[in-house]
C-alpha cells in the first residue's frame, strides 16, 4: 500500500485523526544511543543517593556509573515505577501518541548500569543526620545527596484542592492521567457533549518548558481546525508577551499554519471556578470572565515543599526553587547536597534537554569531588528544543549556556547570536522529522 492510500484510508475516520509519527532516526544514524560498559578501573570510590528519576536525576545516575565506574555506588529513589515523558506529551492531546508511548523504564539503569533502585516516596530530608525518610517508615543514609524531584504546582486562585486538577480542570503540565483527562475533554468538545472555547492559562515565567504552553496552544488549535471542532483556543498569558520564539509562535497564532489562536498577553487570572469552568482575569483594559468549554490552567510552579523544609530554599524570602552553584549544582545553603533539574534555581530554562546536561555536569563535579578535585571551572550546557506547531510541522530553538566567572551564572554568550537563543526560521516538515530523532536520542541518552 502506498503511503498516500494509507493516509486516505485514515482520513475516512474523521474524528479518528491519527497521524503516525515518521521514522524516529535518520538514515545514517544508529537510532538512539548504544550501551557502554561500566568501567572497573577508574580508582574512584564513593556513594551517592539520588532523589528523583526524571530527566536530570536519571541522567546523573547513569553518568555517575558510566564515568565513575563500579567503585561508585549509586542509589536512585523514585516514587513511580516508570517515568512518563513530558516532552511530546502535547501529542497525546491530539491523539498522535498515547501515554504508553511516552513511558520509560529504569531497567537499563538498574540492570546495565548497576544503579540500585529504591521505589518509595521521600517525606523528609534530614540534612543534619544525612538521612532520607520514606513514607513507609524506612530511611536511607547518604554520603552525598542529589535532589532532582521536579516541581510542584500551586493552586490557582479560587481552587480548593489539588484534586480538582485531577478531575475537573487538568493542568497536564506533568504527563500522566491529567494528560488523558484533557484529551478526553477535548474529544467531548469534538463529540458535542461539551460546548465552548478551549481556554489555557500561562503563569509568569519561570515555569517548566518555556515554549511548552505556546506549543500546546498551536497543536491543540491545529487539532480543533483539522477536526472541524467548534470553539476557538484562547490563551491567557500572565507574561506581557510571548516569552520565547516569539516570531514563530506569533506567526502561527495569526494563522500562518492554518489555524488561529486568540492570544491575550498580560492577563492575570484572579479566580477560576473548576465546576463551572469559569475563569476571571484582569488585563490592561479591566476585568473579564470566560466560561470555557475546556479549561486548562497551567499553574505557577515551585520546588517541592520537602526542599524548603530541608532549608534548600526559602519561601519566606520569595524563593520558589533551590539556589545552587552552577559549577557543581551543590546547594549554596546545604553543603554536600546538590539540586539538579527544574527544582534548581539558575538562569537556564527548566526543561528536559538542559536537565540532562545539568545531570552530567553534576555527575562530573561529584566524581571530581570524590577525588579531592575542584569542579570544571568552565562548564557549558545546551538547550536544543524542538516544538511541534501542527501535526506535521515543527520549529526549534537553540541555546548554548557558558559559565561566566564574573557573574557566577550560566549565560548565552555574546558570540551566540548576541547573547540570544536562535530559533528556526519557521515551522517545517523537515524540522518535524528532526524532532522525532532528537526526542528518541535524548530519551535514549537519559534512560538507555
Amino acid at each position, binding site marked *: 500500500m502506498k503511503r498516500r492510500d494509507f493516509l486516505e484510508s485514515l482520513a475516512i475516520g474523521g474524528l479518528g485523526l491519527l497521524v503516525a509519527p515518521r521514522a524516529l532516526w535518520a538514515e545514517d544514524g*544508529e537510532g538512539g544511543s548504544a550501551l557502554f*560498559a561500566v568501567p572497573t578501573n577508574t580508582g574512584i570510590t564513593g556513594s551517592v543517593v539520588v532523589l528523583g528519576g526524571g530527566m536530570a536525576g536519571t541522567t546523573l545516575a547513569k553518568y555517575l556509573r558510566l564515568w565513575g565506574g563500579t567503585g561508585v555506588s549509586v542509589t536512585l529513589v523514585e516514587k513511580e515505577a516508570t517515568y512518563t515523558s513530558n516532552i511530546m506529551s502535547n501529542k497525546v492531546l491530539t491523539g498522535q501518541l498515547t501515554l504508553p508511548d511516552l513511558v520509560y523504564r529504569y531497567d537499563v539503569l538498574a540492570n546495565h548500569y548497576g544503579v540500585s533502585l529504591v521505589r518509595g516516596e521521600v517525606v523528609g530530608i534530614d540534612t543534619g543526620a544525612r538521612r532520607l525518610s520514606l513514607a513507609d517508615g524506612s530511611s536511607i543514609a547518604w554520603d552525598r545527596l542529589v535532589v532532582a524531584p521536579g516541581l510542584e504546582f500551586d493552586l490557582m486562585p479560587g481552587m480548593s484542592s489539588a484534586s480538582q486538577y485531577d478531575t475537573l480542570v487538568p493542568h497536564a503540565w506533568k504527563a500522566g492521567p491529567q494528560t488523558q483527562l484533557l484529551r478526553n475533554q477535548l474529544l467531548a468538545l469534538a463529540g458535542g457533549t461539551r460546548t465552548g472555547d478551549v481556554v489555557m492559562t500561562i503563569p509568569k515565567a519561570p515555569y517548566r518548558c518555556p515554549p511548552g504552553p505556546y506549543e500546546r496552544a498551536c497543536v491543540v488549535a491545529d487539532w480543533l481546525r483539522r477536526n472541524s471542532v467548534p470553539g476557538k483556543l484562547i490563551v491567557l498569558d500572565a507574561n506581557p508577551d510571548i516569552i520565547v520564539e516569539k516570531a514563530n509562535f506569533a506567526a502561527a497564532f495569526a494563522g500562518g499554519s492554518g489555524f488561529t489562536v486568540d492570544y491575550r498577553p498580560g492577563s492575570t487570572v484572579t479566580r477560576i471556578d473548576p465546576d463551572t469552568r469559569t475563569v476571571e482575569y484582569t488585563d490592561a483594559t479591566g476585568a473579564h470572565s470566560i466560561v470555557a468549554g475546556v479549561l486548562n490552567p497551567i499553574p505557577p510552579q515551585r520546588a517541592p515543599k520537602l526542599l524548603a523544609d530541608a532549608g534548600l530554599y526559602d519561601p519566606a524570602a520569595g524563593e520558589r526553587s533551590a539556589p545552587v552553584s552552577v559549577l557543581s549544582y551543590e546547594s549554596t545553603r546545604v553543603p554536600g547536597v546538590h539540586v539538579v533539574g527544574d527544582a534548581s534555581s539558575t538562569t537556564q530554562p527548566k526543561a528536559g534537554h538542559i536537565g540532562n546536561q545539568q545531570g552530567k555536569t553534576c555527575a562530573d563535579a561529584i566524581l571530581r569531588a570524590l577525588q579531592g578535585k575542584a569542579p570544571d571551572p568552565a562548564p557549558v550546557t545546551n538547550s536544543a528544543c524542538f516544538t511541534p506547531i501542527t501535526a506535521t510541522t515543527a520549529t526549534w530553538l537553540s541555546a548554548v549556556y557558558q559559565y561566566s566567572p564574573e557573574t557566577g551564572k550560566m549565560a548565552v554568550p555574546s558570540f551566540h547570536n548576541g547573547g540570544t537563543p536562535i530559533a528556526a526560521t519557521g515551522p517545517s516538515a523537515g524540522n518535524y522529522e528532526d524532532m522525532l530523532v532528537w526526542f528518541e536520542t535524548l530519551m535514549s541518552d537519559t534512560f538507555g
Partner: protein
Amino acid sequence: MTKLDRLATFATLLFSLAAIPATVGHATASTTLSRSIVLLSGDGASMTIPSAGGPLGLTNSNPAAVSAAVSGTTLSVTALAPGKAAIVVKEGRKTRAKLKVTVKAPMTVAPTTLAVPVAESAQARISNAFGPVVATSADTAVATVYLDGESVVVRGRAAGATTVTVRDSRTTAAVAVTVSAPGGGSGGGGGGTVSGTTEGRLLASNCFQCHGTYGSGGFDRISGKSETELIEELNEFLAGGEDPGGIMAAHLQGYTAAQLQAIARYLSHP
C-alpha cells in the same frame, strides 16, 4: 471518548449511509445522488434512491466485486471481493443515483513474529488499513510500540515476551514479540568500550542528547572519526555548506573555536 468509542463512531458513520440520502428522499425528479463508500468483503450497505415513483433499474460495472439489488426505492449492495464497482440506478432514462463502491481486503500485518534486543527496534508492515490504526503492546514493560507510516515499530524495553495488537476500524491482528537482553555489556547499536579519558569529556557530553551517549548514534554517529575530519565537518556547518539555517549551524555558534577543537579531540578517541 476512548479510542474504542471513536472507532464505534467511525463504524456508525460508515453504516449510516442510508440515512444521508434519506434527507433528499423526496427530491424532485432532477436530483441525481452521488455517493461513494468503502467496504470490506461481506459488508452490506443500503441507501434510499430519490425517485418520482417509477420503476428503478440498475447497472453494476463489477458484479464480481459487489452484488447490488434495488427493491422499492432502496438500493442494497453487498461487498464480495476486493475491487471497485460503479452502481448506477435509473428511473426510465433518468439517472437517479450513482454509487461508487470500493471493496478492500482486510488489514494484515506481517511478519506476525518479531525478535528484538532491548533498546533496539524492529518493525512489521501494515497492509490494507481501514480507518484509524491503533497499535498497543500487552506489556509495555517488555516492549513499546508506535506507528510509523504503514509500519508498526516495536522497541524492546526489557527481556521477555509480549503481544502487540494492531487494530484498524474493522480488523485486529497480533504480532508475537520476543525481546532479548542487550548483548554482553558492550551493548548493541554500535556500542563498545571507550578509553576513559576525561579531557574534554564533560564538554563533549553536550553532543550526546542528539548524537547518543559517547556520540554513538542519534542524528549521526560522531565518535571515532579523526579530529581533523570532525573539525572539517563542523566548519562546513558553520560556513553554511551543510544544512544552512539548520539547528547545527545555530548551535555551533555557542562554542568557542577552542571548545570545538577540544570536543573534536575527545570524540576522536572518547
